[in-house]
């Protein structure tokens, strides 16, 4: 194959954290930070929507699901461009590329969180809700103290899997020249010119270790018996 990985050894720090020492967070560090930020945002938004769908009137549920599906009917790349070009037009301020990507990712993924969370709630045995109501709890109390905690615990593996997707999607920040891992790898490639195989294969390997590791963790978590299942 004739691969020479010294180029990786020369640039490993740049790939890992970009120009962070100079004050501009980048590289794998930026990738993980963006994924975490987008992950938390999409989780909050998705679960909030799921709550509204579950407790609210049917028309609201239909509207929320339709909106979520509409965003997902369009390429994520396009959603990123929308946020990047439209927010300045609406709010008269320029926002950094990384923030655009985080918002776009969070918005896009919140639909997946919504569907997953609803599925998790629906998978709970109906008896739990009825038992709660029978002992005098209100619908809201039944939801927050009985259904939601169980559903969330069962859903942890699914959320971890969504987070792994998030990590992969941060690579699209490349299109806005945000210096996360894919961009830094591309910069190294442009600078060095003759080592694309070593650079991109290594970058792929880094993502692989991260995402495969998360997927493996998700599987391990999923094998715990789900709460609420009959013995």
């Amino acid at each position: 194959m004739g691969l020479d990985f010294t180029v990786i050894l020369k640039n490993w720090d740049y790939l890992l954290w970009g120009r962070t020492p100079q004050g501009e967070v980048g590289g794998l560090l930026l990738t993980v930070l963006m994924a975490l930020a987008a992950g938390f945002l999409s989780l909050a938004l998705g679960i909030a929507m799921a709550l509204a769908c579950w407790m609210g009137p049917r028309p609201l549920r239909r509207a929320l699901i339709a909106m979520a599906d509409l965003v997902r009917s369009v390429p994520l790349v396009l959603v990123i461009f929308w946020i990047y070009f439209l927010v300045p037009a609406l709010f008269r301020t320029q926002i950094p590329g990384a923030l655009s990507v985080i918002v776009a990712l969070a918005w896009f993924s919140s639909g997946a969180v919504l569907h997953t969370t609803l599925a998790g709630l629906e998978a709970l045995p109906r008896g739990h809700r009825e038992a709660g109501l029978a002992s005098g709890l209100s619908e809201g109390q039944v939801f927050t103290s009985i259904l939601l905690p169980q559903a969330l615990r069962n859903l942890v593996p699914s959320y971890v899997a969504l987070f792994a997707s998030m990590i992969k999607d941060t690579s699209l920040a490349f299109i806005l020249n945000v210096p996360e891992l894919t961009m830094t790898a591309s910069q190294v490639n442009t600078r060095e010119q003759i080592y694309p195989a070593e650079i991109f294969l290594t970058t792929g390997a880094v993502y692989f270790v991260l995402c495969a590791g998360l997927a493996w963790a998700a599987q391990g978590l999923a094998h715990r018996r789900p709460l609420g299942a009959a013995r």
Partner: protein
Amino acid sequence: MAFDWSGVLSGHPLHWLLQGLAVTIAVTLVAGAIATVVAVLLTALRLSPLAPVRLATRAVVSLIRNTPLLIQLMVWYFVGFARLPQAIKDVMTRDHPWATLPGQVSLAGPEFVAAAWGVGLFIGVFLGEELQAGLNAVAPGQREAAASQGFGAWDTLVAILLPQALRNAYEPVVGQYLNLMKLTAIACSIGLAELTYQARQVESFNSHAFEAFAAATLLYLGLGLVLERALRAVRRA
């Protein structure tokens, strides 16, 4: 905020957008065909009696699922293309007027080939997973019935198991093809002049960001609807 639709729906911008649409459609079709072949192949390989084959298949699937599509496209574009034999590279970089899409995009060029192959392989893996799930839901008695009649492994798969697997997994399978169409947008990063790329071109040409992206969005939505209708029509056939 005043919208200037004529800035986008006439002259060069309109041409560019339509050219981009044509390229997106072409990539989607070619990648879709590749994905279908890859999915069936992976499913067949996973049924192989040879353990090394099954292991290798799982390894490849894991590799493709757990790396970003963008990185895979870059690997195919920068690394894959560079390592092709010179003769093939020459064919790919030459002009082929009969195989050129609107906007001077050559069907044999490295951008198109890397995009179609990269996206096709990626979705092929996910499609294979859905097919496998559909297969697992087929009653075990079906395999026995086929065996008892003397069917070989390939005939059993094609005539008895796959049709039922497809019925079981129809919604997710349609979803994957729609996904494929949306993922072609990522190919703008390797220079393929598809719809998203052209929308950016329009934006940098006359700064009509909203109108350009709105037009692109509507075209993607329309394309998605057409694709979904077409796939459902296939089911009825």
